[in-house]
């Protein structure tokens, strides 16, 4: 691009010429390649940083398009804008460019409004509402939750890309950071840009300004160390923010839960649901439900899958009036939900129709028909909800057909762009015999339940969770099963959504259900025309119940608080008391598990597992102890025994590197290395091959010593006149300070002079000189007396140079430590 600007055509109007001159700023610098790292290099670095800044916010947009589609268009648009910026950099003035960018942005926005079915007219008619929308976005409504996120992205991207690159090419680096920075800031405010991307963008912006400034002022690379220090500082500061535990805020978070629990994972925030690896189950009671019949208690509905998390699109509306009823026949049921602890969700049986008037004003309803509290429910809060029970028979579902409404098709068939063909093929295989959507759902449900086993102790996969679980993992828990089933059904063009909530809990009497943290769950809802959303359960429930029941029993035995409420205390965890029998029956009887183990051993598991699954099974059957918890802890122990006692994460390594680089740059900046060398050199000197050098360096040490105890040598003073001047200046100083009249100093002076100005000194003389300075240096230490005595003894005893040298060194080191000890 430098050639582009280099050929700057300066013909035409006066304004054109002015432009050409502005641009040629960088060009003249390019021409005068005076140094290897000069303005030319800084220009490249600054432009690189500008590109990086662009890349940072495009990356965020790309994340969106990856989930909802439109990546090629986005990239084409970005590349096109970069080209346009490059071309126009020398053709149009900044004002024109700004105008062009605004036009592009306006067009993009209009396009978005048109395609989301609102129409451009809204700009005129409902300016306030529009502004409110933008406000909503900027206060944390994630882009990914926007219904037409892809189009929004395409409308948003061009203007900042163009302006940033255009201004950077013109050498206006500080200005160029503005549009890019604003774009990034906006994405930060919406909550789409994560920490790393934000950090990258910030650093890139800083780099662009810094390097641009260095280019403009013709700085040298030695001045860039300041930038390095700033970089390191920013990185460390911003990363350390994430290490500081932040308080849970907002109604979405569940009280008393932390990130490691299953609840914390599936309801990490009201509008998104993530994944983790190993999770704990909280045995604490969350709420109780008085209901005629048991049900899963739904707390969240999610429609958009990004590959590593679920996102709920659309916004909440205040709950005023009844929620849309399911299209088909349904029964209704009433439930009284009482919070037993502070919770940020509103569990209801699907599909909720209404919430009692009193609680309604604190409730919001999402566009998916799920209710949410607008504030955290505190212990004792209760509400009555009415739900429609959609439970059609098999036959009805079989005949439901595929005549899905438009809005259902639009929203519930989404798959991440990077979903592989393999995934679809595999799904097609699984559903090969299935004809109707219901059969497909049943087939997939059955396949997952039988081919994967249940475990809370898994490593979080990277990449598309659904694919990873299907192809790479042998066990998982509800969120993996549900996610995979959702995605598989969507691959088969069946509208499906991912829902979270709690299982029915422990029934303590006819109508009371006690729901604990460990009942947290995720499952699947499939849409059937004329019926609405029907729940499916891909998680192997038997295994799940066992694991969860064990956890509860453990918690009860350990006397964990809040495990029970009054009514549930005496109720055993399992309906069937005969715990061991059940397990004995189940484990060997489960053919799938053995199947699974075989495949596991044969091909699936690439890494050697210290605790292979067959043994696992034995453990459970023979001991009859709790397989879930014990196994979990066993594997955990053995794993940690194999690896390091502490884990060095990549992030930590990177952070350490950054800190070290920053330190190095800072040391470079402050000449710290030299200072350190000086300090060390004061008390220790390595003898070299050149005795003259040794003598000279010994004198320099002496000079520094004198400089510390008296004053530094002035430039005009020769070695001898310096010492002589000190002798004159010194008036009876106390102990510890160096006496300039010392004979040893005279010795050092003489050999220094001879080494530097005369015919040189012998090796022996040099050693003697070093020794003299060593002694003098040691006497300066707080514990000097002792050190000096040993030093003298060593010096006198050792006849050879080397031996006395070594002896001196060791005592010197000792002194050093004593010194630091003080």
């Amino acid at each position, binding site marked *: 691009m430098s050639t582009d600007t280099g050929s700057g055509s300066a013909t035409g109007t006066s304004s054109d010429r002015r432009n050409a001159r502005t641009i040629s700023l960088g060009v003249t610098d390019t021409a005068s390649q005076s140094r290897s790292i000069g303005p030319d290099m800084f220009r490249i670095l600054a432009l690189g940083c500008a590109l990086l800044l662009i890349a940072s916010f495009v990356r965020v947009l790309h994340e969106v398009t990856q989930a909802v589609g439109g990546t090629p268009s986005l990239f084409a648009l970005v590349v096109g804008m970069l080209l346009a910026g490059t071309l126009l950099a020398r053709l149009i003035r900044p004002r024109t460019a700004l105008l062009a960018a605004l036009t592009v942005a306006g067009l993009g926005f209009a396009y978005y409004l048109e395609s989301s079915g609102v129409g451009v007219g809204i700009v005129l008619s409902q300016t306030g509402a529009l502004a409110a929308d933008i406000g909503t976005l900027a206060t944390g409504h994630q882009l990914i939750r926007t219904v037409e996120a892809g189009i929004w992205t395409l409308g948003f991207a061009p203007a900042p890309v163009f302006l940033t690159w255009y201004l950077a090419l013109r050498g206006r680096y500080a200005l160029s950071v503005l549009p890019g920075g604003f774009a990034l800031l906006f994405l930060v405010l919406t909550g789409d840009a994560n920490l790393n991307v934000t950090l990258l963008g910030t650093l890139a912006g800083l780099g662009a300004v810094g390097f641009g400034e260095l280019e403009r002022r013709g700085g040298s690379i030695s001045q860039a160390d300041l930038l390095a220090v700033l970089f390191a500082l920013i990185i460390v500061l911003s990363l350390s923010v994430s290490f500081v535990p932040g308080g849970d805020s907002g109604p979405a978070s569940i009280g008393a839960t932390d990130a490691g629990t299953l609840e914390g994972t599936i309801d990490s925030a009201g509008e998104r649901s993530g994944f983790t690896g190993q999770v704990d189950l909280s045995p604490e009671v969350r709420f109780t439900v008085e209901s005629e019949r048991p049900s899963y208690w739904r707390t969240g509905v999610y429609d958009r899958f990004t590959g590593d998390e679920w996102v709920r699109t659309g916004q909440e509306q205040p709950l005023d009036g009844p929620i849309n009823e399911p299209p088909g026949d349904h029964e209704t049921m009433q439930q009284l939900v009482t919070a037993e602890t502070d919770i940020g969700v509103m569990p209801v049986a699907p599909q909720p129709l209404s919430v009692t008037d009193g609680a309604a004003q604190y409730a919001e309803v999402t566009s998916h028909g799920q209710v949410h509290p607008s504030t955290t429910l505190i212990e004792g809060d209760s509400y009555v909800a009415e739900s429609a029970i959609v439970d059609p028979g098999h036959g009805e579902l079989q005949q439901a057909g595929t005549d899905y409404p438009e809005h259902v098709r639009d929203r519930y068939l989404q798959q991440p762009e990077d979903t592989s063909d393999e995934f679809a093929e595999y799904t097609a295989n699984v559903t090969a015999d299935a004809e109707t959507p219901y059969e497909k759902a049943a087939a997939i449900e059955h396949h997952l339940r039988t081919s994967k086993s249940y475990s809370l102790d898994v490593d979080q996969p990277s990449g598309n969770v659904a694919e990873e679980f299907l192809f790479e993992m042998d066990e998982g828990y509800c969120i993996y099963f549900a996610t995979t089933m959702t995605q598989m059904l969507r691959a088969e063009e069946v509208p499906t959504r991912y829902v979270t909530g709690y299982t029915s809990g422990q029934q303590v009497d006819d109508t009371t259900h006690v729901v604990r943290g460990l009942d947290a769950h995720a499952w699947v809802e499939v849409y059937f025309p004329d019926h609405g959303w029907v729940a499916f359960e891909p998680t192997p429930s038997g295994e799940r119940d066992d694991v969860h029941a064990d956890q509860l029993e453990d918690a009860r035995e350990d006397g964990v608080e809040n495990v029970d409420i009054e009514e549930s205390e005496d109720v055993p965890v399992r309906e069937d008391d005969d715990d061991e029998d059940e397990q004995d029956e189940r484990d060997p009887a489960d053919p799938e598990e053995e199947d699974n183990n075989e495949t596991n051993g044969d091909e699936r598991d690439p890494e050697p597992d210290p605790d292979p699954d067959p043994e696992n099974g034995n453990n459970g059957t023979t001991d009859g102890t709790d397989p879930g918890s014990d196994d979990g802890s066993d594997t955990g122990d053995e794993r940690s025994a194999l690896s390091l006692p502490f884990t060095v994460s990549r992030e930590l390594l990177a952070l350490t590197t950054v800190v070290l680089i920053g330190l190095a740059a800072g040391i470079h900046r402050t000449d710290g290395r030299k200072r350190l060398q000086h300090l060390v050199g004061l008390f220790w000197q390595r003898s070299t091959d050149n005795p003259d050098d040794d003598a000279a360096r010994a004198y320099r040490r002496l000079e520094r010593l004198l400089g510390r105890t008296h004053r530094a040598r*002035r*430039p*005009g*003073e*020769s*070695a*001898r*006149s310096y010492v002589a001047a000190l002798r004159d200046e010194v008036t009876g100083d106390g102990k510890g300070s160096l006496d300039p009249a010392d004979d040893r100093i005279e010795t050092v002076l003489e050999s220094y*002079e*001879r080494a*530097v*100005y*005369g*015919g040189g000194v012998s090796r022996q003389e040099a050693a003697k000189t070093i020794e003299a300075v060593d002694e003098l240096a040691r006497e300066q230490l707080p514990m000097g007396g002792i050190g000096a005595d040993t030093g003298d003894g060593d010096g006198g005893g050792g006849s050879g140079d080397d031996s006395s040298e070594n002896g001196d060194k060791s005592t010197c080191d000792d002194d050093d430590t004593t010194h630091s000890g003080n």
Partner: protein
Amino acid sequence: MTDADPPTDMVLETTPIDADEQTEEIDPLPLTRVESIGTDIEDNVARVIVGHESVIEHVITALLGRGHVLLDDVPGVGKTMLARSIATSVDCTFRRIQFTPDLLPTDVTGVNVFNQQTREFEFQPGPIFGNIVLGDEINRAPPKTQSALLEAMEEQQVTADGETRSLPSPFTVIATQNAIEPNRTYDLPFAELDRFMKKLHLGYPDPKDEAELLGRTVGTHPIEELESVTDRETLVRARETVSRIEVAAPVRAYVTRLAGYTRENAHIGASPRGTIALLRAAQARAVINGRDYVTPDDVQAEAAVVLSHRVKTNNRTRDGKAIVADALEQVPVDG
């Protein structure tokens, strides 16, 4: 008129220079001998001159360092006495020229005289032909006459009637000049000033020294009883020793930096001749101090007297001396 000794005991060769003659090898004296010679002369001179030890030392280092000395002071402080006692201490030819306004160049260099007997012109050598030449009140002679000294001092030769004659070795001019009566004196040309290795000031003696001086000179003046402590040949060999003293690169660089400083900070700075003179003086001082190498301290000890008169400023308040003092303070000793 010339106030020189009659040229009757003329033993000096005054023949024109023969090119081959100059390449005689001089055997240097051992370092310790030279050191003791310096001490001997110093002690000897101190018998006549009370106090002024550093000036005496400077004159001796100039003598050993092949330089000429200009003593600049008011009359009566012992300039001539110093020059005479130095000359007497060395057993060699001593000549004295009293410069007056009507002194002619030939009165200094010598003249071809027609010999009636041989019926040939004979060169009658002037008072410049001596080993130690005392030019008294040198600034009383007009520039024309002073210029006669130029060639002698720099080239150690004189040219009379187109014939160049070599001056004896060693050849040292010790000149005095009067700092008072400026309207009856001629300023020394800068070029001539530059040819003096050192310009020294005696100054009035300390009251204690002066009392001592009065006591000594009540009877016969001690100069009359002064005896030489060394001879011409020894001096030549001692000079050879001095000229072979090692000057390490850091010292040379330091001298260069000093000169550079004066050039940057004065109208006219120290000339290369000045830096050469400084090094020679420093060499001599190193020998006097018993060293066979020059240290920056030697340079610093000599710089003030060697460089000051070569530095000319336009600023009345800051003369060459101040500039050189600044240079010594500010120019770093180690590169």
